[in-house]
């Protein structure tokens, strides 16, 4: 039996490793199924499919809802969409929702905004422990270099916060900010020429005591101004690699996943952020306690294999019908 997986973003996908890993985990969960990559719905191999999984985002230049409409009109292949970008692309995803048999939504709150609840499942992306987990040890603590790290897309609001951090942390603080596509002026040394591989990214988090969580505020297809609740997978990846998650007390959604003060640290002001991350560098027991708690919580609850199993169960059921 042939199941197709279509990375709708293709070369534009900022995190292709997520798709690669989903494909591998689906293959493990469905050992009797052949999983093939699809990159065009008009491709001959689509005719032999028994199921098609679309992900992670409808917004791109090599796929359109018209093509999907045509595909649905000419085949009986069941189709599911797994969104990675809700609520930022909610309006587009909602249009796609009408055209698919099931939608797996990355955000708990937004999954309540799709009306037909029979067709929707909350399915957070989670982190892959085989790729990211580095258990903390005294030897690794010796290797740590950075007090605070942020790596990600350089959205305007993120740059403003990072500038405030850089301006207000004590001068001897070791900060590591690396941005792709900066939307505002920032120090040259923050700019990355290209995206990092997951291995390089993991090494950065291994060498950091803390990673600040800065969710994106950019909503380019979310006219209802829906806010996210479920944190992006990066916070779980960074934590598995050994960086304590540090979260603004306004990013409340995170606290449904990581308990404040136990599995993550919170801050209300830049000064508090500086104080708490400084404490992590000075107090090994404190660092070890928080990071161990946080890693265990993720390993128990938020692995990509759990989410992929949910999708695999749906595919299995569809194949059996």
């Amino acid at each position, binding site marked *: 039996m042939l199941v197709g997986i279509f990375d709708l973003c293709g070369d534009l996908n900022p995190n292709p490793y997520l798709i690669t890993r989903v494909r591998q985990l689906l293959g493990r969960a469905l050992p009797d199924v052949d999983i093939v990559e699809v990159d065009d719905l008009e491709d001959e191999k689509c005719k032999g499919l028994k199921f098609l999984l679309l992900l992670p985002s409808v917004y791109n230049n090599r796929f359109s809802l018209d093509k999907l409409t045509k595909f649905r009109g000419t085949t009986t292949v069941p189709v599911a969409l797994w969104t990675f970008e809700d609520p930022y692309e909610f309006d587009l995803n909602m249009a796609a929702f009408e055209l698919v048999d099931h939608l797996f939504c990355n955000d708990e709150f937004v999954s309540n905004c799709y009306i037909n609840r029979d067709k929707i499942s909350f399915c957070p992306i989670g982190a892959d422990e085989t790729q990211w987990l580095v258990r903390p040890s005294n030897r690794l603590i010796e290797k740590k270099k950075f007090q605070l790290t942020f790596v990600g897309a350089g959205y305007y609001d993120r740059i403003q916060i990072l500038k405030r951090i850089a301006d207000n942390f004590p001068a001897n603080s070791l900060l590591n900010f690396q941005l792709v596509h900066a939307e505002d002026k920032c120090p040259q040394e923050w700019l990355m020429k290209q995206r990092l591989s997951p291995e390089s990214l993991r090494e950065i988090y291994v060498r950091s005591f803390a990673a600040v969580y800065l969710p994106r505020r950019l909503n380019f297809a979310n006219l*209802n101004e829906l806010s996210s609740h479920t944190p992006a997978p990066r916070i779980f990846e960074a934590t598995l690699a050994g960086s304590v998650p540090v979260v603004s007390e*306004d990013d*409340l959604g995170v606290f449904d996943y990581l308990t404040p003060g136990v599995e993550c640290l919170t801050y209300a002001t830049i000064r508090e952020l500086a104080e708490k991350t400084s404490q992590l560098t000075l107090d090994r027991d404190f660092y070890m306690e928080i990071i161990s708690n946080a890693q265990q919580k993720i390993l128990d609850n938020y692995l990509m294999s759990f989410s992929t199993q949910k999708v695999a169960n749906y595919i299995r059921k569809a194949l059996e019908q």
Partner: protein
Amino acid sequence: MSRRQLKVGLILSRYPTPNYPIFAQIVRAWVDSGASVTWDLTANMSLISNKIKDSEKFDLVLILGGENLSPQRILPISELIRSKKIPFVLWTSEDPDLSNATLEIATSFDFIFSNCKNSAELYRQHGHNSAFLPLAAGESLYFRRALPLNLKSWDVAFVGSCWPNRLKFFSGFCSMLNEPSFEYIRPYIRIFRNHELREMINQSSDYFNLLPLFLDNYTSPRSLSYIYNSSVVSLNLLRDFGNGTLPPPLNNRFYEIGLAGGYQILIASKNTDLGEIPPAVRVITADDEKVIIGKILDSIGSILSDPDSYKRDIDDTQDYILKNHTFINRLRTIETTILHDQIS
């Protein structure tokens, strides 16, 4: 005796809107109760219009909201729906702020449910069929089990839109919390930034102390329920519409705090008709801000002194909300009012 399935057309009067999640909850509730629902988010309500033109039968068509409903927009669809003898119903969510605008289009509807008791009375005085029907709380967005007092993250919380009375109140309240004698109180107070706010700040420096508390983005309902659940008390300061005519009605936050397992201090106008008040709600009606602040602190003190009653009151309130103030309850009211329980 089995009865036929209810067939409903549901329109959101303004889309897109941050209120969209409420609309989604209502559609889901109606579907859950067994109805067949067609929902329409198009600007010209064309989806439902076209179905009616194609002779599709509806038991009722309901518009939720009331914003953006000019006579030019509403008359054509009203004539179409009524020509087919389908009851055409409006459920307002922004009264009394939009009462005057609603009066201009009231003849287009067979019935108007209003979120404001006084507005419903106003519509009746003008000869229209109308009843009070407040919004409710969405169970899947707000329900959380109550936390014991020792697991609360904050002592007092508020998150809401910017209205002049709220700015004035919280400016005084936050100044008080900054005094050394109140440093032990852990607050979580946030106000959504909007154009009214910018105007007020331009006019007065009194609100500068609130600047760190402003949010540019809305907080998701799921996150709001986390705040209500994690705070010893949540303040519900009813907004002052500033039109000077009708007192503010109860808002949906009134029900949402209760469903989230929170304890509420409701700061209401003396003229607001509150109806039944569940046990985990304390009501303060006063004009003087210092009196209000003093009563809030007294309430927190007495709540903290009796943790057993606190938990019991929250649980009882949650049960009360689930039994009486979810969207399914509201839809039953609409069905029995409009259709006199003809269908299941």
